């Protein structure tokens, strides 16, 4: 009787213990719940396609208004670069007037800059999450996709940091050791410190170099941009290379940033590498017939020259929201007439401005007494991928970088500028000065968000029409935007 009792207890004990054991080991798995109404990280990043979607998501988000779908391409930075005439009606132009006077402290612009900053860094976070997860997942990837995705994510991270540095950092050529922005080189729950610009420059450089190595097998080097839909139903992930940060786009970014960081030797080297690739047919200058032949359907953005562009499904809204003359009486962005006729597309040999310039002929259309900017207006062939492109970096800029970087003496770069001009249907310049190099930059990159950074890089006066009070003298309070509230207060 008693033995039985003990035995029964023993059985109970063993039973209970084994139940416990099973339960303990099963617990951890059971507790791993996944949300159904959102996409869990583990689910998303368990396949190659998941990484592709995340990468594509980042590219898509770059099209937001507060980034390159507005503020950093056609709107905010171009106003800062003096590109547009600011009207006198305060009800229409009030906030733009403030910005043209570099009143970064106004409530409106503080909020807008904050928005840009937050969005840029949120995409940096997305890049970092991708990079953090991809490291242990190499086995998921086929072909060269691991290297391409990782390389592009690194390049995106570098590009966004670079643009934040160009906006909020010091004038690099004068105060490179000044505190600038934080650099997030990994996903972190801890806020990263604000560092001197020169340190940020090194981090950007490092990321871009690593991206370039990862992208060294990029098919763009052999097959070009592959901008025509193959239509065979196969994956287009490795096609349309100019819509992503391809090998040459990274090389071009290296050239652009090297110049900004004052490393002319590297700037020249990387610019020439891209130019060389162009000569080998990877990137081609715009077909003359597309810009002069049929005025109804010109390739206004010179799409074959674009090394990297965003693809914005409603790109026409850039034209409609900012440049369309039918917007009147609302604000419309256009170049000052005086600036246009005396410097950019006029002024003879001293300025290099000419009405024959393709860039003038296709992009500046007269309505009434003024000419309006049609770069982002749709082509007639609306289904064309060209109609979605917002150029981020282009071949023309490489020639200008090469010209600027050739030597400390700016005149040494004349031949590069003249080569570019030859593709624009205008006569060569006889001599290169800082001024006519700047005009060339304006002609080539108008409406692409680079002009302000050119002035900031050169620490030179910002050209404006004399009506607006003439050029803006270079000053830190013009070029250096204070860090947003969200960065300093928290």
């Amino acid at each position: 009787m008693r033995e039985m009792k003990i035995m029964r207890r023993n059985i109970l004990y063993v039973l209970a213990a084994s139940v416990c054991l099973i339960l303990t080991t099963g617990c951890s798995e059971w507790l791993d719940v996944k949300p159904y109404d959102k996409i869990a990280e583990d689910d998303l990043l368990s396949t190659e396609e998941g990484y592709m979607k995340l990468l594509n998501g980042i590219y898509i988000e770059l099209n937001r208004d507060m980034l390159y779908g507005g503020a950093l391409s056609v709107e905010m930075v171009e106003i800062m670069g003096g590109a547009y005439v600011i009207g006198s009606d305060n009800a229409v132009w009030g906030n733009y007037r403030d910005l043209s006077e570099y009143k970064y402290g106004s409530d409106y612009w503080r909020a807008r800059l904050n928005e840009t900053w937050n969005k840029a860094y949120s995409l940096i976070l997305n890049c970092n999450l991708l990079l953090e997860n991809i490291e242990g997942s190499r086995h998921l990837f086929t072909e060269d996709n691991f290297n391409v995705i990782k390389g592009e994510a690194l390049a995106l991270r570098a590009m966004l940091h670079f643009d934040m540095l160009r906006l909020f950092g010091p004038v690099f050529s004068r105060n490179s050791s000044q505190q600038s922005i934080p650099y997030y080189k990994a996903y972190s729950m801890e806020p990263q410190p604000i560092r001197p610009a020169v340190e940020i420059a090194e981090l950007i450089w490092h990321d871009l170099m690593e991206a370039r190595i990862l992208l060294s097998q990029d098919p763009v080097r052999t097959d070009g941009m592959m901008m025509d839909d193959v239509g065979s139903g196969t994956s287009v992930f490795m096609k349309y290379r100019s819509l992503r940060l391809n090998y040459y786009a990274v090389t071009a970014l290296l050239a652009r940033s090297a110049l900004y960081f004052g490393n002319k030797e590297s700037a020249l080297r990387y610019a020439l590498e891209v130019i060389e690739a162009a000569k080998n047919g990877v990137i081609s200058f715009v077909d003359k017939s597309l810009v002069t032949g049929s005025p109804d359907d010109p390739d206004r953005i010179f799409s074959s020259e674009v090394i990297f562009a965003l693809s914005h499904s409603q790109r026409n809204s850039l034209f409609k929201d900012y440049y369309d003359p039918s917007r009147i009486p609302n604000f419309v962005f256009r170049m000052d007439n005086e600036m246009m006729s005396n410097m950019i597309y006029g002024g003879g040999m001293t300025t290099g401005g000419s009405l024959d310039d393709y860039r003038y002929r296709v992009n500046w259309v007269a309505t009434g007494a003024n000419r309006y900017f049609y770069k982002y207006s749709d082509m007639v062939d609306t289904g064309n991928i060209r109609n979605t492109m917002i150029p981020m970096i282009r071949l023309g800029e490489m020639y200008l970088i090469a010209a600027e970087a050739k030597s400390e003496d700016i005149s040494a770069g004349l031949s590069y500028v003249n080569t570019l001009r030859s593709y624009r249907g205008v006569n060569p310049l006889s001599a290169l000065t800082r001024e006519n190099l700047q005009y060339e930059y304006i002609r080539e990159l108008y409406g692409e968000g680079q002009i302000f950074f050119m002035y900031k890089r050169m620490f030179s006066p910002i050209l404006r029409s004399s009506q607006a009070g003439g050029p803006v003298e270079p000053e830190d309070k013009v070029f250096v935007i204070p860090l947003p509230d969200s960065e300093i207060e928290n």
Partner: protein
Amino acid sequence: MNMIDMKWNVSHSVVAFITFFLLFMSGSALAQNSGTAVLKGTVTDSSDGFPLIGVSVIVEGKKYGVITDLDGNYELRFPKQTATIVFSYVGYDDVEKEYNLKNEASFSKIVMYMNATELEDVIVTGVYERKKESFTGASATFKTDQLKAVGTNNVLQSLKTLDPSFKMMESAQFGSNPNMMPDVEIRGKTSVMGLKEEYGTDPNQPLFILDGFETTIETIMNLNMNRVASVTILKDAASTAIYGSKASNGVVVIETKAPARGRLQLSYKGDYGLSMADLTDYNLMNAREKLQFETLAGVYTDRSGSPFTQIQLDALRNERLKEIERGVDTYWLSEPIRSGVTHKHNIYAEGGEDKIRYGIGLSYGNVAGVMKGSDRQTLEGNVDLIYRTGKFQFSNKLTIDYLETANPTVSFSEYAYANPYYRKYNALGKVDKYLYYSEDGIGSTVTNPLWDAHLNNWDKASGFGFTNNFIFEWFVTEDLRMRAKFGLSKSDDDEQTRLSPLHSSFDEVGETEKGLYSRTQIQQLVYEGDVSVTFGKLIAQKHMLNAVGGFNFSNNSQHVYGYSANGFTDDQFDAPSFANGYPVDGKPDYRETLKRAVSFYVNGGYVYDDRYLMDFNYRLDGASMFGTGNRFRNTWSVGLGWNVHKEHFLKDNDFFSFFKIRGSVGNPGNQNFSAYQAFSTYKFNGWMTNIFGTGVILNALGNAELAWQETVNYDIGADLTFWGERVNLTLDYFWKDTDPLLAIITTRGSMGVTSVAMNAGRQHTKGWEATFKISPIYRPAERINWNISINAAHSRSRYADIGNAFSALNESGKSSLVGTTRYYDGGSPTAIWAVRSAGIDPATGQEVFIKKDGSYSLTYDVSDEVVVGDTQPSVEGIFGSTLYFKGLSVGCYFRYRVGGQVFNTSLFQKVENIGTEDVYNNQDKRALYDRWSPDNREAYFKGISMVQKTEKSSRFVMDENTLTGESVNIGYEFPDRMIRRLRISALNLQLTMTDMFRASTVRVERGIDYPFARSVTMSLGITF
């Protein structure tokens, strides 16, 4: 008091403990010898004659003892000698019988009597039960009679009157809205306030346990009070730690009645109540005053200097004046309110024999709120079954409930805003849409609140719930019990709102988009399982051991579906099918959450010689809400106690009948947080796709390293009963440290997210509680008793190490109109922050501020903010008295609140800060009379002005001392002789009045959107 009965006090043990105790078990087996006395018999219950199972029968002073079997039989053998045999059973009086070597026969039938008072001395934790005398935790238990004596609304409402540590936050916004779930807390807050919305669940809400299973506050609110058997509040670490990481806010354990054995018994309990709105806090202007105020504020003075406009304004004023002369002085507040009739019924039939017991019940409740169109109806059916065979017991409680609620669609504040110089109805007796329609920019258009109210708008919800709780128990041996529980509950709620197309909010909306219908469906499925082993044994007469060990898992999933439709064209025909379409950019709403938790727990109790007590708890919790880095967490607690009255030096003393000193420490945690805060989630960037297809980006950044919020809890207390049981005193001092706090922190923009769930800082709380009860007249034999009771609680909290983590909340608080809560190190969560004011300068009428350095200034600077008060009172509690005379009882309870402050928003918003829009709303009388003017230079308030903005200053912070008549009741229990002829076995009647009055040193509008109510309830209980 014998200790053997403790064995059956359900207490549970870890599996590992079992083998350990096997040794003790075998050692205690009975030794047999030749001179053996054999006593045999049956033990039965005096009330129904049923055998009692598990009664311990021992030889006093010896180690011999047995327990009655399933038929109540026992057979006790021991070496033949004279002895005292003690029969003891939980809840029954001990029976002691002398054995004189030959009276074996007298032991054949033992009858035991239930001891009513003793049952109350059992602490039910939901996992185990323990006698109060051997429990080291701080807790309070209330029986259904006590709960019903102070109020009949719901269990929580009554608890707040009975226990000082249980607080139900009064909502100035929602008043006595029966459909609004209250914020409740035990011993103050443990989490950062103001984050309820972010978490979705109130992080300060205690854990509710109903019949051993976790449940929601809503279920408790809906529970018909007549079904409740007892409620236990567990406060300190020793009592709550068994619930581990859910317990830091305290635990409320509710047990419903179990069917009683015996012949079929039918009982009916009914409550019939009437409630009326309490509008005494409103101090609104009458028609003449309002017009005068408007005139002084410059409503009828044209500022543009146009003589034509001035003529129109004069005409408008004259017209209104004429109306006033005609006697128009409309009292709008009476419009939306009514006398709410509440009735609740409960029928319960129970019975059964020893093997099967059953209970079936049906409850219905209809609460009509004091606002028209505010209703809450509950229908609840329950079946309770207990089946016992051999060593096994199966019990099952099934509840099915249905709920219907309706809310008024026009807020009470709309009526409070309406000016008294408008008529409610036009000449035809109809309601016009506008009280005043502005033309040519003269005045501002005012909508008639009666217009929106008379339309076919609704805001209603219904819910269907099913709960089945199954418990299986195996009485392995007399000391060891195994229990498996499984509870399942499913609920479906459906909320629908409709605004008529004629509603004033659609005035500016296109014809095809007027009207709005929205529907939200919430489906919830919860299941919980638990397996535990309980062990209890008295060893060598002096060592009482209790142990429980178990495993628990729970799963809680919720799905929310919602959509809206608009474009209705008719007021009357309101089916969603008449909608024209969906709102622009509207999309279906869908949300899902899944929370899972598992835990292992061990509880042990040891009592030495009835005098020295020790409890310990350990629980390992794992929860899906926490990241892989921190998925599991340990909870522990240790409690010590000393029964001073059992000491030898007090043994012969008659004064102290109970004197226990106890202390405990432990670290319960909190997991009232959102389901996926630890995980990063992504979403489609649906606004655009490109040639590469779709894209995804981060939706929310999770923090996998998020640590559980835990509160280290210390408690020292004493329970005393003395002077022949006439005085009861319970004292507790506690302090607790929540470290780390878990909060949604605003981050730097460069972090890539604007906020993230993080651990930040600590919160330290200190406080005390006291409950004192004295019976100047105490004659239990004659059933005459007079009690006076008073209880009090005090607590203070402060933040530490939070640094700048809450700077965003501080900034938004500073810039908000009325926000006075700040988060700084050393600051209290309930502190009122504002700039000190030296009052109004009599000469100029301007407010003089006191800067941080003490200097005076006319300019307001938000950085001069200091603590100017604390909404937490110094002492808050209840005092009351109850008189029992035979069957009659009379009781009254008053709440007092002393030493707190309040930021008077009525003064701030309805006396000053009346802006250009607000001036068209009716305002507090003080806005007219107490304002500065050259004739009234000593005024407390600034001069009348529409444009002047008043900043938050200490001028609006007032000492708040209140006295509330919380409950008065008169009850009568009819004596047996009166009701016997009616074949009724019990009949009682009770009249309860709640919230009869409220006196406060501060006059501030309460019940902004819904007024507070006073109620009178008649209760009837009949048992056949």
